[in-house]
């Protein structure tokens, strides 16, 4: 690609924060509480501890070939044709499909909680029109808009966290480790997969970051800030709603926002708070969509990825509708099988890539 995109380190950090929060904020308290009950917050800490080495792994790959994106690395490792074929398969299976699932999360949230009589197709189409518009402008406007929108999202979340504090019931957290450590590990698994293993896709934008010497710091900072927000949310959900209600709701964060009631004046603010996750979900879908479109353009050596966005959006909408028959199927997949799918692409694939890159550079030295 000759027209290279350049984003600043600050913008990259914000992109990481937005992507980690993404749609995760909607469903993660429920997924964690299903497994770990009142120990969900311990699962969250464990998930962060496991995710840090993953970031090292991704950065180690990036350090070996700092100018190449993930799909270009496949080409380096596998050779021209096998690399291209593998890249196309990877792009259609991984970022594209994750984008479809993220879109489905947004659609499910809107149709079950806010607009029950609107067909989900219309919500997906309207959401994707905005995403396509953003994509037509390119990655730089997307990161600039995330820079512009993050204060709104953070303020909304801050208002939510502060105004729910009076309703905390400390006894919801106890007893700690009632069922031993196993449920804590079981709860950490979906949280590691979603969103932390999906961070492998940042290898698609890492070469575009301006100050390459501080790129690791920017990535770590983004992931930790994003995690801290999710951790606070999980803790507050458990503290206010209790583990059983959290586990039985599909979107416990929204239920939590509904609970806000200060002196019967400041109440029914949930839809205003929901602006925060519309913003983060939007940036997340844009990011996955960019990975898919730019990846295809890089693989096929096209001059521009932007005009692929409308056809890809059509496919994305179809997949988001056809591959998820209902919401409980998606929840079950998120909890049970998607972690292992993510493990394949987020851990095994980068590990193999790193080993092959090391072997290649070792051979060149001899």
């Amino acid at each position, binding site marked *: 690609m000759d027209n290279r995109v350049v984003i600043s380190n600050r913008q990259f950090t914000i992109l990481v924060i937005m992507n980690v929060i993404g749609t995760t904020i909607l469903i993660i308290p429920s997924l964690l509480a299903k497994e770990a009950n009142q120990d969900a917050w311990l699962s969250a800490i464990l998930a962060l501890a496991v995710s840090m080495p993953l970031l090292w792994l991704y950065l180690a790959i990036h350090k070996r070939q700092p100018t190449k994106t993930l799909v270009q690395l496949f080409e380096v490792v596998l050779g021209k044709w096998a690399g291209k074929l593998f890249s196309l398969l990877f792009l259609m*299976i991984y970022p594209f*499909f994750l984008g479809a*699932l993220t879109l489905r999360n947004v659609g499910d949230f809107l149709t079950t909680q806010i607009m029950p009589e609107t067909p989900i197709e219309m919500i997906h189409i309207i959401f994707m029109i905005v995403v396509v518009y953003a994509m037509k402008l390119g990655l730089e406007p997307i990161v600039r808009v995330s820079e512009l929108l993050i204060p709104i999202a953070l303020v909304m979340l801050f208002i939510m966290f502060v105004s729910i504090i009076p309703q905390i019931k400390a006894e919801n957290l106890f007893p700690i480790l009632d069922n031993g450590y*196993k*449920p804590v*590990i*079981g709860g950490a*698994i979906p949280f590691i997969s979603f969103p932390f293993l999906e961070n492998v896709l940042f290898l698609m934008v890492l070469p575009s970051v301006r100050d390459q010497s501080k790129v690791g710091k920017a990535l770590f900072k983004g992931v930790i800030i994003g995690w801290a927000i999710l951790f606070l949310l999980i803790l507050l959900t458990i503290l206010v709603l209790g583990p059983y209600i959290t586990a039985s709701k599909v979107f416990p964060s929204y239920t939590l926002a509904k609970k806000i009631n200060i002196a019967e004046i400041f109440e029914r603010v949930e839809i205003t708070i929901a602006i925060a996750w519309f913003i983060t979900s939007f940036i997340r879908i844009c990011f996955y969509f960019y990975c898919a479109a730019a990846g*295809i353009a890089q693989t*096929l*050596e*096209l*001059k*521009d990825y932007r*005009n*692929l966005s*409308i*056809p*890809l*959006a*059509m*496919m994305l*909408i*179809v*997949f988001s*509708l*056809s*591959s*998820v028959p209902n919401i409980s*199927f*998606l929840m079950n*997949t998120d909890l*049970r*099988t*998607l*972690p*292992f*799918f993510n493990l394949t692409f987020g851990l095994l694939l980068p590990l193999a890539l790193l080993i092959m890159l090391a072997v290649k550079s070792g051979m060149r030295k001899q």
Partner: protein
Amino acid sequence: MLIVVCLILFAAILALVEVPPLWRRKLKKEAWVFSIFLLGGTFLSIAQTMHAVLPNPLLWINYVYTPISNIVFNQLLG
């Protein structure tokens, strides 16, 4: 049927808007890739509106990963 006609019209208009500028700028490969993706997208959309059974990657994922998931969640953590 109306929606199928609309989809085909939409795809045709989109092709008319997007392809000639690419062709004029001698970006033939880009034009081909765009056309193939547009054809695929239109085909999938029509299939979806006619309630055809489309390949479902999520089912494949479930099929492939259920054994290991059962081992981890039922045996190791059960």
